């Protein structure tokens, strides 16, 4: 293998890496604009480009249209939620698990509410958003299945399903946003509301096999 051919893939990788980095910065610029001005669900390409520090052409070289950018932002946020919110304390006692799940979920809601609203309000007009919204909801439910496994295991399949539906409703992003925006609760106070509600909803924790 000659030196020329050996160095070629490295150069292509570098370009690809830079392009991916640009894509990410464009997505981050879009998300930042959404958080700053939630009334404007789709800022103009010019504003996104300006915020990201690129040309408008750079945006459309990476995203065929702004709907694709919105879908990519949803993927980015889903990946970020998974990376920043790994399950913790799954073997803890009931109080520890509830606190851990609620605080993790609260962090995800706090970071994701602006984009979530855009997704929910645009989901009927953009088929690409439907699976992403579904995935986000499924992940919330899966997480609760992991965190509350001991309590859920005491329920019949039907009751477990219904319990998870209700838990997901209580811990919906909009439920979080209302506590923060409408009722003016602090992060800790809002977590407290969810912690107490979930504790009341869950059945008693069964004794562990070693007890």
């Amino acid at each position: 293998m000659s030196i020329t051919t050996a160095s070629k893939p490295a150069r292509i990788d570098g370009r690809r890496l830079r392009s991916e980095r640009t894509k990410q910065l464009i997505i981050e610029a879009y998300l930042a604009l959404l958080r700053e001005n939630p009334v404007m669900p789709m800022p103009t390409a010019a504003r996104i480009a300006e915020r990201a520090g690129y040309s408008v052409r750079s945006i459309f070289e990476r995203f065929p249209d702004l709907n694709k950018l919105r879908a990519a932002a949803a993927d980015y946020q889903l990946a970020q939620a998974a990376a920043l919110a790994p399950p913790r304390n799954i073997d803890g006692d009931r109080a520890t698990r509830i606190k851990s799940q609620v605080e993790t979920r609260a962090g995800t809601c706090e970071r994701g509410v602006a984009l979530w609203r855009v997704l929910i309000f645009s989901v009927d007009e953009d088929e690409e958003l439907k699976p992403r919204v579904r995935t986000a909801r499924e992940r919330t439910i899966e997480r609760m299945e992991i965190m509350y496994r001991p309590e859920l295991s005491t329920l019949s399949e039907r009751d477990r399903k219904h319990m998870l539906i209700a838990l997901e409703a209580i811990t919906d992003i909009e439920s979080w946003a209302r506590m923060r925006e409408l009722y003016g609760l602090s992060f800790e106070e809002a977590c407290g509301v969810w912690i107490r509600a979930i504790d009341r909803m869950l059945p008693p924790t069964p004794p562990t096999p070693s007890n």
Partner: protein
Amino acid sequence: MALPSPSQDGRRLRSERTKQSIMDAYIELLREKPDVPTAAQIAARAGISTRSVFERFVDLKGLSLSTLDYAFAMGEAQAVVRDVDGDRPTRLRSHVETRAHTCERWLPVWRVVVANQGKMEELRDRVRFIRQAIVKRVELMYRPELGVLSAEERRDLLIALEALIDFESWARMRDGHGLSFEEACSVWMRMIDRMLPPTPPSRDE
């Protein structure tokens, strides 16, 4: 002061009826498609001219707000308070079924209102008002149970109950999880029952 003549009364009545038919047309269109309709679409559905619409409403914003107030009044009239003094299961069933019917009927309208609230301060106020009405109904139906809680605990529980019985929570049970009306009511009833504290003995017990 001169009393209005019968012909003036008749004209006013007809005008009120036209106004109502415009708002009914608006609501019908919202139920079919989750977008704010144009004045021309509303007029066509109501069977009148666009000019007639603007003779009765200053602009589309005014019509939208009047329609929302009209829809809220209808929703309230349909959601009659029943069984306030019933036992716990009776109150739970009555409250949940009433709320569920409201969600079934008004979800499409609610969605458009929520989607557009960022554009109009008046819409935001109305969304807040409607949420308050939902919470007030919960307070009324579960007064005995809520009465045993401290102010802070009561506030927290009301916030959680409101999240549980939100329009979108109902929509997910019905559309997302495919539950029947009765199954979805049963989920809400069981969960509210779990969340409420024990019912205190009544005074005459």
